[in-house]
């Protein structure tokens, strides 16, 4: 299992075949969805199915569960049923305020204690889906030490903002920027939004690359074909790895020689460049690339 969260792959919690097969596509993280993918008539069945699957089998990757929102009658039952399964995290939809997150934190703590699970084991990923949520993004990210990631729920956000969906998602640019900024400020993972157009691989790749440029390091995906494309964009290329190696080598040599000015191929190398190069190498290594 790698330590990255490049892809969070949503798996409908009511589809046994998809639950059983989801791990084969190599996502860094699987999220069993009890919320939007499951109709109100099947909420109990999905909870039982996910519960029964994870009690007997554990895929070799990180596991999250998207529970139903706090404004639904399923929320508390979801938390009480899922925490004992010890997923890596619960993903909370419609996170709007720090209080939302703290309420979930308290409930998880109660269930952890009741099940003799070390308090703090289960993390929280927050889906921010409203104007208020985007406005409060930093407070949400800092609301609890359990929060390790925040991301934009684009469709609900558009609805809340009375926005129509455009092809290049221009209308959510500010929200994406805000989420990325607040996540980095709070030292949590910024999760990029779900792009549901899986029939346009080129368009999807462009969208992922744009998200990467905005600072995102994780993408929520809903179709197996999207996983490889995200990894392709997020994982450093051989060329990038080679360049990063040179930067680090030049830097280390300069340090050893106590040289003041560091340059590579005629360009000045300063500390941020060295830090970025080290990040690239660490990321590539975590993604299983040979360094």
């Amino acid at each position, binding site marked *: 299992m790698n330590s990255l969260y490049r892809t969070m792959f949503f798996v409908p919690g009511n589809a046994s075949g998809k639950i059983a*097969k989801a791990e084969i*596509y190599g996502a860094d993280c699987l999220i069993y969805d009890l919320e939007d993918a499951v109709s109100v008539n099947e909420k109990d069945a999905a909870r039982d199915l996910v519960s029964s699957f994870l009690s007997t089998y554990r895929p070799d990757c990180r596991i999250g569960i998207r529970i139903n929102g706090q404004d639904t009658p399923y929320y508390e039952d979801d938390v009480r049923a899922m925490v004992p399964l010890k997923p890596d995290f619960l993903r909370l939809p419609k996170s709007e305020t720090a209080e939302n997150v703290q309420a979930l934190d308290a409930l998880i703590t109660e269930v952890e204690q009741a099940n003799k699970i070390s308090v703090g084991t289960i993390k929280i990923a927050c889906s921010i889906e409203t104007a208020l949520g985007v406005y409060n993004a930093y407070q949400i990210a800092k609301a609890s030490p359990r929060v390790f990631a925040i991301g934009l729920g684009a469709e609900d956000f558009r609805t809340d903002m009375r926005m129509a969906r455009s092809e290049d998602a221009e209308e959510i640019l500010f929200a994406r920027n805000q989420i990325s900024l607040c996540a980095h400020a709070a030292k949590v993972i910024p999760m990029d939004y779900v792009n549901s157009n899986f029939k346009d691989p080129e368009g999807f790749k462009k969208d992922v690359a744009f998200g990467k440029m905005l600072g995102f390091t994780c993408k929520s995906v809903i179709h197996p074909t999207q996983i490889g494309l995200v990894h392709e964009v997020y994982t450093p290329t051989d060329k990038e790895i080679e360049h990063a190696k040179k930067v680090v080598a030049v830097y280390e040599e300069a340090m050893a020689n106590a040289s003041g000015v560091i340059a590579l191929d005629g360009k000045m190398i300063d500390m941020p460049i060295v830090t970025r190069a080290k990040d690239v190498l660490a990321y590539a290594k975590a993604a299983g690339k040979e360094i």
Partner: protein
Amino acid sequence: MVDEKYMEQIRKVPGWETKQAFSGAYNAHPEGSRMAPRPVKFFRPGTDKVKSLDYILDAIGLKDGMTISFHHCLRNGDAVMLYVVDSIAKKGIKDLTLSASSLSKVQDCLLPYFESGVITAVDTSGARSKLGSFIQKGGLKKPAIFRTHGGRARAIETGELHIDAAFIAAPACDRFGNLNGVEGKSACGSLGYAMPDAEYADHVIAVTDGLSDTPLDYVSIPQTQVDYVTTVDSIGDPAGIATGSIRVSKNPAELLISRYAAQVIAATPYFHDNMVFQFGSGGMAIATAGYIRQEMLKKNYTAAAGVGGVSGFHVQMLKEGLIKTFYDPQDFDLTAIDSLRTDIKHHEISASAYANPFSACPYVNMLDFTVLSATEIDVDFNVNVLTDSYGKLLGAPGGHPDAAAGAQMTLITMPLLRGRLPMLLDHVTTVVTPGESVDVLVTEYGIAVNPRRPDIAECLKGKGLPLTSIEALREKAVKLSGKASPLELSDKICGVVEYRDGSIIDVIHEL
């Protein structure tokens, strides 16, 4: 692999006293003459070969206990078997052996002739649906024989399978008896599976709906082998004979398996310029071929030859020059049929040339690699493509064991689970292709290399592929599906599965 108690039952069948149990894929040491006896013929010039079937059946002296044969190139569109068997039944002839290169669901219509005793024995590659059920209810006088395509050609040529009358469905046929499968309203493509029958049967009768008064330009089976020609309105339903287009898998799990398979191939020395390969025509095999095509373009490689059944995708590669020549015993779609007729690089070959192990070198021996599917596989890499998980007949050995034995590297692409059932078992329900001729299993959960091939395992290291052992994959399958109760099969056998060399590799049980 076959229990001695079953071999004892088999050797009690008249004519099968010397049948041997399978002892290894390359252990056969054939002796004796290749030529099966065939009557000498004389045709007075000017004699008309075109006769009614009724006349022909009398003229050839067809009688109780004889063996009649058919090819399966019309696949699920075939109307010839029913027409001929019905005509024979009307003459009161009974107790025939039906030797068909395979039997499809369309042949369910023959069931009444099985039930009434017109047909009492079967020699085929596959049987399914109602005929399969009839066989597994113990309806035949002796166990059915399931042969590989190459094994059937071998049996015909050695005289082990003696055909009294071969009825050859012919999409195009002239009055002299030349015939082909690439022209006419019922075109089916290569007639490779009919060629051994035409060469060795005592009597050869072409059944055609495309009679030509002038000699054919394209000849698959020559007039020198054909005794009579009879005409019918239709030899079959074109929709069942050839599909209009190929199916490329869109299932993401199948695409993943196909991509892994292509990565495995590309990492081995068998992927090289001028390679020779065989891909099946299933969705996953075509998808694998698609990925291999991309790799070939990247490396600027071409294949010296393609071997085996042809579909539109193979033709595309032939036209692009990525495959230089094709040796074709069977076609699956209209594009392939048209290519066989028009492209001089596309060659029609017989089932014997394709896969007969008792020849100097069948075309399958050229293969650098082949990508095959499986119904089940086991931890010893044995493959089943004939029965389902309950022992019920559903498929056919076809060319599977032949290609696997001939190729330098054989890959099996298969989902680890189908529905709730694991397809990787401790022991397959029926052994059709022995594990010693299978090199790599590619599933969506990982890739296992046969321990007999450490050289291949070595090539795959460090390539980012999900390598694992077959035992670990089996454990995963059990973990996901739960352990199934052992299958209880009847001790009564209703079929024997013959390996390509004629030895018995497994049996089919009554159900």
